[in-house]
């Protein structure tokens, strides 16, 4: 029973992570990319919780709270950046923001 | 204490000149001249006070603690070789300030600061007897020189300054590695970790270690000297630097490489040097001929003179590795006479540049008609450069060659052919600049009073060195001969055996 829960929980987390990753890679709209990053973060959080429940340790949930906090901060910074990018480039296309090209 | 004064006078003078130039530029120039003159007089007084200089080695020594826990001391010492080099440094240094009197109008204070600090670095290099301190001074002369080329140079100065810096810095780092290597090898063997030159002499090490450490030192010195194929920084640096920069580069900076070979490479690594000697001589000959052929084809006057330096410095490494007292005496003479004669040619090139604003010899010619004094001076130094007897360079080259003949006749023949090539390029200077028809529409005033003050002492000294070289050679006689005492015994035994 436990085994099944763990593996299916991790599978779900992996699937979510892959979805997020693929999203980041294929979407050009920065907002969508940000959303996908959030999905990946949540996938990682899910994996922590699953692992925490496996060993009956609180650490997993502690980590999730950390991730949640960090994600909130990240979203706020990220949205601010997106606003700036839109302001400067008049577009939300992530590939347009390539002025750091070598 | 007088030894510390040599360096500090220049450093303090440099700082003063920098500050004072904010109010009065001429005063800054006078301060520089004064600092160098004081040093020059101090140097002469050391010579004066040691009548037995012929038979003495170390004249003065000074040691103070610096970082005792690492075995680093502030250790200075002077012998005949250092003394001659110092006198040359201050002598040419004074002219370096004088020749820049009108040429440098921009950032005068910083210029004189750099000039004096380069000279201070060179002075330190010639004096120091602690390898760590040696490396320190080696860098001290590098950085101000970088500014001298990069700020007050000609049109392509940035490139030249970079190139100069990278070449000398990279090779200097190899030397630092070798210094540290020697430090640890000596420390492990004896238990005392020290950078002191005298302690490091006669360090016992395996042949392989010795070879690598020697190559590290050699790297720095052959780049500085320079030996073909490490010479390519030199034509750019010389031709792009301001006149004083070229004068100091050619007259003094190159000599630190030669000095390093004589002071460090040979005594610290005797057997590895002997091992590499035939190769070093070969590179010397290649340098002589290669430099000459390049000099022949140049059209930029300063670049031409720069390549003649490459050729002349070939004689230095050639003679040093001949392991022979006569050749070594020739090398010391070559260091001095080349400093004077090539320095003078750069000064002349600078004077011409001031007049017609070009260094291209194809647009010169016929200056004899307009500026006979300048042309006679030019003739004398061109002749010095081709090794005419009666001028100092002949003494140097003849001694080098006659000494090297004992070591390696075949290479000496090729080195002697360099003299023919020297004739070709030197006379080309004469022909293109001073003889021929006067073509430019610019006016060529003859040398000014200030320029005459520079050229006349140079002319007198090159002739004096050609006719009465013995007093100068006596100064280094003992220093050189002790290096070859053991050597000499073994060779005479050999030659007896042959008979």
């Amino acid at each position, binding site marked *: 029973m436990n085994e099944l829960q763990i593996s299916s929980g991790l599978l779900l987390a992996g699937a979510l992570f892959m979805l997020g990753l693929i999203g980041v890679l*294929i979407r050009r709209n920065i907002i969508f990319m940000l959303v996908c990053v959030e999905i990946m973060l949540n996938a990682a959080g899910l994996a922590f919780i699953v692992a925490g429940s496996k060993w009956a340790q609180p650490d997993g949930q502690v980590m999730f709270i950390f991730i949640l906090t960090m994600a909130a901060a990240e979203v706020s910074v990220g949205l601010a950046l997106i606003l700036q990018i839109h302001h400067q480039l008049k577009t939300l296309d992530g590939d347009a923001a390539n002025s750091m090209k070598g | 204490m007088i030894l510390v004064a040599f360096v500090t006078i220049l450093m303090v003078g440099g700082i003063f000149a920098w500050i004072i130039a904010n109010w009065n530029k001429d005063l800054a120039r006078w301060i520089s001249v004064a600092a160098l003159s004081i040093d020059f007089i101090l140097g002469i007084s050391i010579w004066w006070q040691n009548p037995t200089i012929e038979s003495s080695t170390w004249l003065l020594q000074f040691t103070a603690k610096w970082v005792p826990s690492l075995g680093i001391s502030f250790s200075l010492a002077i012998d005949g070789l250092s003394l001659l080099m110092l006198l040359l440094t201050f002598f040419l240094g004074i002219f370096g300030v004088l020749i820049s009197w009108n040429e440098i109008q921009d950032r005068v204070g910083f210029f004189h600061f750099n000039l004096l600090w380069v000279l201070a670095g060179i002075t330190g290099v010639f004096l120091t007897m602690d390898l760590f301190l040696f490396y320190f001074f080696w860098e001290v002369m590098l950085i101000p020189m970088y500014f001298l080329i990069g700020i007050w140079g000609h049109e392509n100065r940035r490139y030249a300054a970079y190139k100069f810096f990278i070449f000398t810095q990279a090779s200097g780092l190899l030397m630092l590695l070798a210094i540290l290597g020697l430090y640890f090898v000596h420390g492990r063997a004896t238990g005392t970790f020290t950078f002191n030159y005298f302690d490091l002499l006669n360090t016992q090490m395996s042949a392989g270690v010795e070879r690598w450490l020697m190559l590290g030192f050699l790297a720095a010195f052959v780049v500085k000297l320079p030996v073909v194929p490490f010479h390519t920084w030199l034509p750019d640096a010389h031709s792009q630097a301001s006149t004083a920069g070229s004068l100091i580069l050619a007259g003094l900076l190159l000599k630190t490489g030669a000095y390093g070979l004589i002071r460090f490479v040979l005594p610290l690594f005797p057997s590895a040097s002997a091992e590499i000697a035939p190769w070093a001589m070969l590179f010397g000959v290649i340098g002589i001929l290669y430099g000459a052929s390049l000099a022949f084809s140049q059209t930029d006057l300063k670049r031409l003179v720069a390549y003649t330096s490459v050729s002349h410095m070939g004689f230095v490494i050639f003679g040093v590795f001949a392991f022979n007292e006569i050749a070594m005496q020739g090398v010391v003479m070559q260091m001095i006479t080349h400093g004077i004669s090539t320095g003078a040619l750069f000064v002349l090139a600078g004077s011409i540049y001031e007049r017609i604003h070009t260094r291209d010899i194809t647009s010169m010619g016929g200056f004899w008609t307009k500026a006979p004094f300048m042309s006679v001076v030019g003739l004398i130094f061109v002749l010095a450069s081709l090794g005419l007897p009666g001028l100092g360079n002949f003494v140097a080259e003849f001694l080098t060659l006659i000494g090297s003949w004992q070591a390696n006749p075949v290479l000496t*023949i090729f080195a002697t052919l360099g003299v023919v090539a020297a004739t070709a390029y030197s006379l080309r200077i004469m022909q293109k600049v001073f003889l021929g028809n006067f073509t430019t529409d610019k006016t060529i005033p003859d040398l000014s009073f200030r320029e005459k003050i520079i050229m006349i002492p140079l002319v007198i000294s090159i002739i004096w060195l050609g006719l009465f070289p013995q007093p100068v050679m006596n100064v280094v006689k003992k220093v050189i001969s002790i290096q070859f005492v053991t050597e000499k015994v073994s060779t005479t035994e050999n030659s007896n055996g042959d008979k």
Partner: protein
Amino acid sequence: MNLLVTPLLPLLGSFILIVAGSRLPKRMVPLVGAGSVGLSAIATLILGYRFISNSLTSIDITAWQWMDVAGFSPAIAFHLDALSLIFIFVITFVGFLIHVYSAEYMIDDDGYARFFAYLNLFVCSMLTLVLANNLVLLYFGWEGVGLCSYLLIGFWYTEEKNGYAARKAFIVTRVGDTALGIGLFMLFQHFNTLNIQEIATQAPQHWAVGSETAMIVSLLLLGGAVGKSAQLPLQTWLPDAMAGPSPVSALIHAATMVTAGVYLIARTHAIFELAPDALMIVGIVGAATLVMAGFTALTQYDLKRVLAYSTISQIGYMFMALGVSAWSAAIFHFMIHAFFKALLFLAAGAVIHALHNEQDMYKMGGLKKKLPVIYWTFLIGASSLAALPLLTGGFYSKDQILWLSLAGEHGNIWFFLFGLLGAFITSIYTFRMLFLTFFGEEKTHVHHVPGNGINIPLLILAGLSTIGGFIELPHSFGHFTVFSDFLKPVLPSISIQEGFEGIEWMIQLIAAGVAISGVYVAYVFYILKPGLSVELKSSAADLNSFFFSGWGFDALYDKFIVRPFVWIANINKRDIVDQLYEGLVWGANALNRVLAFTQSGILRWYIMGIVIGGILLLALGIVKG
């Protein structure tokens, strides 16, 4: 009288003229220039008188120790013996006459003071050369005269071609000097000294006759000698050196400097005697040169170039004499040659001056009446050069060489035949020159008749080149041998091969016949039937141009030495080694461009990179783990 005074006076004169030359009034310049050499000549006379009256063998004086390093200790020291006395006598006297001549000849030149300064410096260097007691000091003088030769050939420096000729002279002789220098290195290695007297005494103990080292050293010394004396294969600079003013050609390129090679070999004869093969080569060089230069002289039309080739040819005789160990004969010919060749050059200079720098003989003619003094003195010089019998000095000196080249102990029939052929050609080209210049009709107008300043030196030299011959008379003419007796302490005398004792008069007869028939040939070709020479020239045009070009040596050197050197120098102007470092820089830049390409600035590419990297790491962990 101090020995130092002789070279010091011209040096002083030169110094004054260099420092104050342009400020001196014009008439002071020759006073200083010629005066210093004149005083030097008087000093020489006093020295010579003391030398002979006290029957000294040598006078030595050391001025100061030049260098002293580990056993190498040349001094600025002079050594006067019979050989150097003859040389300094010729140098100061002929030099003085030429200075006097120049005082008038160069009067209109802007570089009047400069000219005398160089000329004085030359006299000083030449005296140093012949008085030096060691080979390093000799080398000093040797290079010093080379320098003055350079400066004087290029005296009119605004002409590009004069500068070229001057450089050529310096560089070509420097090639020989290099050989000489290497010879000095070898000598020092073996004897640990470069003092000439010490070497001369030590050499026979050190080396056996025919030893290989002696041979090599001798050949190296010969290398120096052929450079300075313009012998094969380094003769090409002398004809071009005629670009200098005529007094320079007379003093440097005829009378004194070019015979320095003869002096060197005579001075180091102790070494050459140990290497008979090398001596043989000296003779061969001389014989080949004298014929080669003679043929070339036949085809020249420039008056001074004829004289230049004739100088090369006459020095060839001296070398041939040295080659058969006829030392004093070589020196005798040197002296007589100095008189008559200086005379010829000065007379030629006067002619050229009179015709406003016209040097082409075919544009001269008929000057006999216009310039009588020049004509007569030139005639005397030419007769001496052509060795017309009995009266001329050249006959006695050249006859001695011919005789000894056959009958001397190292004599050889080939040397004799070459010498005879040379003598024949010499008298043809000499009288061709005379006939073309002074006979026939006037082609160029005489602008200017030379004054006494020019005439008097010519007359004195004409006298010297006549009576000079009588101080050494052969067996068949009373056997009067002041000259060779005088030289005996320095230069060994030569013995005659067996079977030749009685036939000297026959040789003289042959030589005289050859010389006179040469004159006759010239007479036929250039006076009787002037068309004949034109016909001959056109029928053998190739040969003519071959001879005219000096047997193609210039073209040869140009093609195989000068041009390859210039070519290499020019294609390497930007320094191939520097290009290697440039390559290094280029490589670093190229790497930079490649790596910069990966920094596309597109975020998604970076993420992709992270992902791929992560996957690879995971895969690696799984495979390894």
